[in-house]
């Protein structure tokens, strides 16, 4: 195959006020036409920098290509002027970014932003461009494309935005699509669709894809070749099958181990590589991975291993053969594991306390699109007639596709927004009757860990103050006590005590989430709402956080409402799981039960969409087809009937009741599986 892109010995430096930081070094890789290459690695390993460097976007961030070349189609991008580069960006190479919320200009409609790209590169007129935009939006599975076209980014859920992003990137049929964690914010069904879509597009357009992901499942499904990065360097590069079969580098091994499987043992702690990736300004000598590597020797500590060609693949480890041998034989499993597994199953699953939360016929409607002279008010029923309860001490998982109303349900539950109708009882008390002070007092017992750890902390505050805020609000506490408590909390969540005086922007995503957890548990709440608390993190860190959450729960008798779209993770942490679809609660069951015997076709589809981190697994996936209907105009009867393989006329007309299919297993389906 012909090479499309070639990076050679790339080194990127960032110049900051007092020194120069080398973000990536010695990066050599190539992408062939029609090939999908995945870069995996923990947060901060330099994946994004690599991808941005290809586009020369680092120029705008004080970055500089210090060494090496980037050649596409025979043109060396490192030597092009910004003006010439512009004709390549978006047209030859397109890019999808990590954070869809932030990646769109909030003040322009989605449509305008897509059309703008088309017009920039193609000499088509506005109408054609619009038509294409609509086509693209449909193509990426967005319902009501014409309407969405005129919507603003803030009017869409994260998942939809990411799809719009992809549509925008595809606008000009690029040769190379760089996708920087394109499915991080997506739920499994859509992820599966998108991945499928990407594959189709790849076939169709002969497009190459450089996929950056932390989801090994995604990598396994998509990649032809996988590149593992660590601390700014490539540590391993191999064919996807080879890599999963037999990782050569201990880091890769760790990554693979961190994966949570559908059929994993819930009672076990999740595996995670100990420690975290070093900062650029204090990279360890020698092999950057040695502080976290169980095999590290003095050689590793003093000398950096080059990327070596071994068995037709590349790895950067002094002891490739030996290590892989040992790892393969799983000799070292116990040694590598951070912690001996503790028996925790009983501790969790047996708890059938009295309900902490009781939710009755809860609904939340958002008014939309008022017409000037129309009295008719249109609504989005974000949450529609939902009833359930959450028991003391349990973890209640909530899954469902993007826009199904999970976050809204969470917000309404905590009275952060007033429900349109229905009641929420917390410890038997009707929350909607509480106001002002009483409600605030009640909040003491209910904390939130948000989806967006960036935006949910005051950027001007030191993290010590952030974590200490609840203490200050709810307790009269001296400054010294506060500092002590905060430092204690910092340690509990695995952060350095000295971080007290740092600012949020100085932390990584995982660390920020730890801050959020510390803040949430600061005043010993009874309940924590974790809204996609780990979705933005990479596997290893995700595992750390989940373990942390579980530990904290056990320690403090906490009850969780855990919202997530990573089904594996939700399964792992939750005792019971509720499945939402278009504002309805469609199924509720014990988590094992749910995964083993899903009753609702939607649940079944969701489970089957989960990417499996095994390239050999050629399980025929029945991804949920079709588009998610607009919540403003939900289908009649069973809302799922438009996408349900078992739908009948009855489903179209009659809304199924939410009823118990077996003990403790509820579903709203006329024809349960």
């Amino acid at each position, binding site marked *: 195959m012909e090479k499309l892109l070639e990076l050679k010995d790339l080194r990127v430096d960032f110049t900051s006020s007092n020194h120069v930081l080398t973000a990536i070094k010695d990066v050599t890789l190539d992408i062939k036409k029609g090939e999908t290459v995945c870069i995996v690695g923990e947060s901060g390993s330099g994946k994004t920098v690599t991808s941005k460097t290809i586009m020369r976007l680092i120029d705008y961030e004080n970055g500089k290509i210090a060494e090496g070349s980037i050649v596409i189609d025979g043109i060396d991008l490192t030597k092009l002027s910004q003006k010439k580069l512009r004709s390549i960006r978006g*047209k030859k190479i397109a*890019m999808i970014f990590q954070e869809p919320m*932030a990646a769109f*200009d909030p*003040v*322009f409609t989605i449509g305008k932003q897509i059309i703008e790209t088309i017009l920039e590169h193609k000499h088509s007129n506005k109408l054609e461009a619009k038509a294409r935009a609509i086509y693209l939006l449909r193509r990426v599975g967005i319902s009501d494309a014409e309407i969405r076209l005129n919507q*603003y980014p*803030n009017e869409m859920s994260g998942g939809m935005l990411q799809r719009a992003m992809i549509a925008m990137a595809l606008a000009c049929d690029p040769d190379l699509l760089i996708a920087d964690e394109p499915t991080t914010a997506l739920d499994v069904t859509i992820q599966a669709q998108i991945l499928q879509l990407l594959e189709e597009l790849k076939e169709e357009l002969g497009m190459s894809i450089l996929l950056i992901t932390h989801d090994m499942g995604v990598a396994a499904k998509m990649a032809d070749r996988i590149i593992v990065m660590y601390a700014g360097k490539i540590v391993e590069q191999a064919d996807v099958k080879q890599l999963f079969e037999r990782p050569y580098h201990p880091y890769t091994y760790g990554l693979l181990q961190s994966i949570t499987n559908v059929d994993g043992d819930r009672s076990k702690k999740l595996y995670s590589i100990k420690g975290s990736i070093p900062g650029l300004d204090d990279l360890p000598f020698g092999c950057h991975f040695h502080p976290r590597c169980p095999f590290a020797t003095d050689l590793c500590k003093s000398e950096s291993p080059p990327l070596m060609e071994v068995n037709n693949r590349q790895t950067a480890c002094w002891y490739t053969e030996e290590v892989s041998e040992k790892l393969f034989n799983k000799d070292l499993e116990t040694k590598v594991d951070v912690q001996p597994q503790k028996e925790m199953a009983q501790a969790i699953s047996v708890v059938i306390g009295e309900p902490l939360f009781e939710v009755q016929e809860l609904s939340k409607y958002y008014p939309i699109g008022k017409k000037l002279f129309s009295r008719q008010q249109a609504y989005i029923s974000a949450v529609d007639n939902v009833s359930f309860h959450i028991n003391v001490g349990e973890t209640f998982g909530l899954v469902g596709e993007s826009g199904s109303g999970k976050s809204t349900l969470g917000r309404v539950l905590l009275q952060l927004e007033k429900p349109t109708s229905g009641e929420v009882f917390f410890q038997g008390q009707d929350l909607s009757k509480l106001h002002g002070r009483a409600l605030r007092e009640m909040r003491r017992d209910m904390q939130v860990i948000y989806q967006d750890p960036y935006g949910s902390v005051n950027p001007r505050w030191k993290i010590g103050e952030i974590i200490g805020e609840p203490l200050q609000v709810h307790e009269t506490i001296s400054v010294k006590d506060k500092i002590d408590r905060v430092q204690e909390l910092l340690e509990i969540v695995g952060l350095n005590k000295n971080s007290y005086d740092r600012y949020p922007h100085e932390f990584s995503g995982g660390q920020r989430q730890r801050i959020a957890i510390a803040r949430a548990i600061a005043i010993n709440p009874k309940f924590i709402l974790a809204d996609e608390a780990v979705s933005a993190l990479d596997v290893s860190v995700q595992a750390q956080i989940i373990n942390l959450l579980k530990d904290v729960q056990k320690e403090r008798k906490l009850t969780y409402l855990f919202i997530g779209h990573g089904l594996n993770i939700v399964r792992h942490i939750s005792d019971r799981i509720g499945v939402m679809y278009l504002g309805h609660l469609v199924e509720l069951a014990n988590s094992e039960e749910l995964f083993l015997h899903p009753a609702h076709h939607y649940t079944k589809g969701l489970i089957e969409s989960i990417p499996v981190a095994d390239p050999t697994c050629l399980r025929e996936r029945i991804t949920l087809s079709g588009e998610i209907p607009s919540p403003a105009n939900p289908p009649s009867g069973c809302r799922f009937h438009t996408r349900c393989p078992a739908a009948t006329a009855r489903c179209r007309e009659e809304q199924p009741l939410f009823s118990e299919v077996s003990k403790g297993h509820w579903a709203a389906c006329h024809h349960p599986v």
Partner: protein
Amino acid sequence: MALANKILLKISSALVSIFGSLILVFFIIYLLPGDPVLSMLDPSTATAETVANLRKELGLDQPIYIQFADYFLNVLHGDFGQSIINSEPVLPKVLEHFPATLALTLTSAIFSIVIGLLFGVLSAIYRNKWIDFIARLIGLFGISMPTFWSGILLILIFSVFLNWFPAMGSDGWKTLVLPSLSLGFVGAGLIIRMVRTSMLEVVNEQFIVTLRAKGLSERVIMYQHALRNALIPAITIIGINIGELMAGTVVIETVFSRQGVGRIVADAIMAKDLPVIQGVVFFSAIVYVIVNLLVDLSYSLIDPRVRRSDQR
């Protein structure tokens, strides 16, 4: 709440402000020392009796609240009274002069917006470079030079030496150029400053990277995307500035010897000619209110996030 309702609400609250400003001005002027009646008469011949008579005739002997009630009732009937000084009816006088002032205000506003946005964006893009410095200097010159001074300078340069534009007058677009330039500079300074600040916040946002990755030119990115995001504070300033600009015409109209309500009100203030002051304030309040209504509406046009929150 439908859009129409919203506009209605805004308009009704605007009416309240206008009414409020009439009251306020009435009392401010009332508090001013001096007696308009005395300045109307020839001091050497006026007797106490004539003064009293005149005062009575003008209704100035009444208690203030009655004076105000009378005045307000008349205004409701479209009668703005007549000038105390030369008994000219106020309404036609103000209506005659208002367009010139409005034209000056608007051209200055446009001028300051154009200059302000242009330099503000440049200044943000080239932060801390020489262009930034120069743009800010230009802006600050506008702020730290009184309009009469810059006005005279403009006259010397563009009328006396270059003879490009007339030095004075209010007929034809040419006479608008220099005055609106010197008045617009004041607003421009503010806008440059505001735009620069908010632009700096915006250019660090992630979506700017996306836009670059799409291959858009920096010009489009800066002037279409970043600028629009940065516009809210700038727009606010422009709205506020309309009032300032209108106040600025008081000086500018004198310097450039233009017709307009600015000069009328300046004279009226000095003579305590309440009906005239009220008439002018009434109309400028209307303009101010309308402009700010537009500004309010444009908030939601510019930033959909504001719109959504309005709906809740």
